């Protein structure tokens, strides 16, 4: 049993609390916004200049001047603020965001991670990834546990170009939740059907097990019917 991309996003949303200020990167991270408890005041930051990104608009509610960092149209949540790039990156680099949720190609046991230089992509682009990576209080990583070819993405040291050194706090994969501590990777949660040894077999670095490590309990599908779990 594994989490879908939406399942990973659902699980990350469970770790966000009222009063958190959170930046969601492209890919799986941005899906987290679909699983937030909207009764809680959790503020989403968008690096182009929004604190308080709301849900996507209906087509007839689109405001052409309101886009989020993924360049899709967005709305504003109650209490939202709009600002320019200097203030936006003050929030990011200055340590004011509670969490940045980012995708990754590799995460190393010392907390290094790589996510900006995609293998095979000839035109480089970095955007705000490095600023978030050094600046947010906590870096959460959302990614599949292994590559399409089955190679571990949690590794002893990164071989891809780094985004930042020693910054990752927690990794959410399709089969596990893993903390990155001074002592390396620590397994906290596993999907049903997996155990510490099977997770270790797919991890390219030492993995210790938290005393309270437990199985995740995840519904088959979201309230809107999106599959959170896959059984292949």
């Amino acid at each position, binding site marked *: 049993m594994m989490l879908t991309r939406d399942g990973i996003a659902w699980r990350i949303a469970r770790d966000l609390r009222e009063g958190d200020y959170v930046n969601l990167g492209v890919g799986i991270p941005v899906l987290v916004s679909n699983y937030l408890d909207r009764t809680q005041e959790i503020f989403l930051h968008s690096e*182009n*200049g*929004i604190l308080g990104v709301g849900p996507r608009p209906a087509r007839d509610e689109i405001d052409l001047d*309101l886009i989020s960092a993924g360049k899709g149209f967005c709305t504003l949540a109650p209490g939202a603020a709009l600002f*320019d*790039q*200097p203030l936006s*990156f003050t929030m990011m680099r200055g340590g004011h965001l509670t969490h940045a949720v980012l995708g990754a190609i590799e995460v190393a046991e010392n907390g290094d991670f790589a996510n900006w230089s995609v293998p095979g992509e000839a*035109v480089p*682009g970095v955007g705000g990834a490095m600023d978030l990576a050094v600046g947010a209080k906590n870096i959460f990583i959302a990614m599949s546990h292994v590559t399409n070819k089955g190679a571990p993405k949690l590794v002893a040291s990164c071989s891809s170009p780094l985004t930042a050194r020693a910054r990752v706090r927690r990794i959410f994969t399709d089969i596990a939740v893993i903390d990155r501590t001074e002592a390396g990777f620590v397994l906290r949660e596993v999907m049903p059907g997996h155990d510490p040894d099977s997770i270790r077999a797919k991890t390219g670095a030492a993995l210790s097990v938290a005393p309270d490590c437990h199985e995740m309990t995840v519904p088959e599908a979201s309230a809107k019917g999106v599959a959170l779990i896959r059984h292949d």
Partner: protein
Amino acid sequence: MIDKTVQSCREAVAQVFDGASIMLGGFGNVGMPAQLIEALREQGSRDLTLISNGAGTGPYALGALVGDGRVRKVIASFPSPSAAEFRTRYLAGEIELELVPQGTLVERIRAGGCGLGGFYTPTAAGTDLAAGKETRVIDGQEYLLELPLKADFAFLKAHWGDRLGNLMYRGTMRNFNTVMATAAITVVAEVDRLVAVGEIPPDAVHTPGIFVDRLVCVERHPKVVELPREASAT
């Protein structure tokens, strides 16, 4: 009486010269001075250096300017996969790219505009983008020395403007526009509406007129007001 307004985009960009460096506001299409960029295409200057977050959003405005082959260098953080014109020219070796993390790009422009000689940033320390940069350890953390960025011209897009050059934006238009307004020798703004002096409340003047040399009121570029077939998610 001060009057910084000009009647056409053509007039607004007339002074651009071969080899000029130009800052272009905008994040995606929002806050991008698309009509000024189209006028620059007609104006025809060559060997331009563009300073912008991206390198185009399609075959118009910035994307088309790059596609015209008159851009020598782009200083950007995210020349995204949708910038097909840039991609072609870059892979052919016709355009130089200086890739700068977005926050560093912003701060380099800010330093250029506010009279600082540079700054130390933790962003990109220990990565490939630190190559060749001076480093310094401050309170146990490694920082990179980054130098200011200025330009010959900045093209901005604002919502309202008055004859004094005061500008007000809406939504996410502010992005790079406010900071670029401070860092170029000649600053030209494209606005949706020209308003009387005092109509922009002083509390809402995002770019004070001291930074602006010329402004032109023009309908938005048709590609920029076009809704996509399917409104995409964030």
